[in-house]
């Protein structure tokens, strides 16, 4: 309860959470609103938004309903963001926890690896992985996770370094508890709050990554994510720029609200770190 009241005191975060809930609801109910394939041609091409009440957001160059594509695209966009952040968190927490807990050469090696992944230009690496392993949702999620784990690893490591010699951990050690038990059961729960904040921000970053990959035409060909809709519309910016504009606004609002949620989580979970 304490957490909820602190979170909702941040008005931006509250608005962000409500909008994301709405987007998630739309994503879940997409087949109810638009039961047919959103990539089907349903009307005359290049109808401007408002021209025809049947197509509230207009149609694209082929005559596909933009609203239907946005609603269905919400699924792909949100799922990719969530799963990519989960992959990044899994890698980051594993690397950061072992590095911070064991120290020594493990720590040294892990931090060098983190530096390595920060040096390789991230999006170029994602594009290469996706092209080599194939443009499937699965591979895009993994590729984004692989380039997004380093901040989480650094944060987890710092938390573990601060906690590993505290009294409660020493007490567990003196009771003969194993390393894995101490890491998972004792330190990790205490180290999680700042990590959760970062993970929520990685969701937003992952959505931006995916939209760039799809925009460049390297996304999953069977999925109409928002980034791909922007890319599809770019040839027509002289006559029908709304085809590009609408999905971009959808991406921006979603990312903005996820960032607001991240700020709210930061306020609620790390009162010490406020205003950073």
């Amino acid at each position, binding site marked *: 309860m304490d957490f909820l009241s602190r979170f909702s005191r941040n008005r931006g975060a509250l608005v962000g959470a409500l909008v994301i809930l709405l987007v998630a609801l739309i994503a879940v109910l997409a087949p109810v609103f638009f039961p047919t394939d959103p990539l089907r041609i349903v009307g005359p091409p290049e109808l401007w938004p408002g021209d025809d009440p049947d197509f509230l957001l207009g149609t694209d160059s082929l005559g596909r309903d933009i609203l239907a594509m946005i609603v269905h695209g919400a699924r792909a966009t949100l799922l990719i963001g969530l799963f990519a952040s989960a992959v990044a968190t899994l890698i980051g927490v594993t690397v950061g926890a072992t590095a911070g807990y064991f120290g020594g050469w493990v720590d040294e090696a892990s931090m060098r690896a983190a530096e390595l992944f920060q040096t390789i230009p991230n999006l170029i690496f994602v594009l290469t992985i996706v092209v080599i*392993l194939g443009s499937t949702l699965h591979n895009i999620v993994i590729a984004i996770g692989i380039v997004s784990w380093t901040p989480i690893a650094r944060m987890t490591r710092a938390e573990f370094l601060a906690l590993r010699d505290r009294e409660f951990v020493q007490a567990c050690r003196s009771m003969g508890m194993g390393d894995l038990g101490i890491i998972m059961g004792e330190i990790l729960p205490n180290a999680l709050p700042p990590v959760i904040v970062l993970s929520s921000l990685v969701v937003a970053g992952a959505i931006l990554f995916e939209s760039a990959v799809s925009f460049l035409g*390297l996304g999953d060909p069977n999925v109409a994510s928002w980034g791909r809709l922007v890319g599809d519309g770019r040839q027509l910016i002289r006559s029908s720029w709304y085809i590009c504009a609408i999905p971009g606004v959808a991406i921006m609002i979603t*990312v903005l609200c996820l*960032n607001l949620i991240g700020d709210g989580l930061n306020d609620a979970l790390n009162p010490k770190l406020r205003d950073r």
Partner: protein
Amino acid sequence: MAGVIASSSRRVAALNLLRRRLVQAVPLMLGVVVINFVLIHLAPGSFLELMTAENQVSDPATVELLRKTYGMEDPLWLQLGKYIWALLHLDFGFSYRQNMPVIQAITINLPATLLLMISSITLAFAVGVAAGVVASMKVRTFWDSLVSVAAMFFFAAPSFWLGIMMIVLFAVKLGWLPVGGMATIGGGGGIFDILHHLILPTLALGLFYAAIYARVMRSSMLEVAQLDFVRTARAKGLSRNQVTLHHVLRNALLPVVTILGVQMGTVLAGSVVIESVFSWPGVGSLLFDSVSSRNYPVVLGIMVLGSLVVIAANIAVDLLYMWLDPRIEIR
């Protein structure tokens, strides 16, 4: 006298830092090469098949010859060893699509990308720092809110989309700026012509980072303003603006410089997307062509040279950090 000693000891410290960073860069580069080399050899379908298919080579003897020239019969570790050995001699392989050495194909395109990167970072740094300073000096006023709303907006807008929207407004509707490219076709190419073409791509790529720097700068300014030395400076009778500009600003810049270093790789990668939006003739277009035609020697070369650029930029940022932070001298 004291100043001379201080400046010479700082120079020694800077040289030490440079040497240490260069030594650290070696394993880092090795790691970049190994990771990418292994990744590319995970690819199903050898690039030899693609190359022969594209150039319609079917003669078995020729294919065999090519297989030998590209060393494809060797085990993976030997191919890797040979590649690293060649890299040390600046030999990145041969690109059959451009029909020139990979290093040449990349260096032709690299200046345009570097220009875009440098102008975007400069814009981001200038705008971000200025906005952060204004917001922190006018904290909790209209100006502060304006900066944070703008920062939220640009931090969430996908750069490629922002670029397209700016093309629609400034190039298509208003006709003030060119739609894309780096120079006017026929008769262009002067420095002002290039700068004219540079404005929109720089804004599209740079405003995202300006948003980050503005937020960091604002909170950093507010934090430094609480420190003891600021109170001392005020107690000496310096005006609030003097203290802010001379004492707080320099110290508050440090976190911004740190992020700047961490984000170099991201900026380089981001320019790939922006280059595609604005038909900017940089490494991005070469990468895109090479990735979609599976021209792996070029992809690997771009990764290696790109990482080198990032490492060099990081070293520059470290030196800048040292110049800004007087405490580093003691170490």
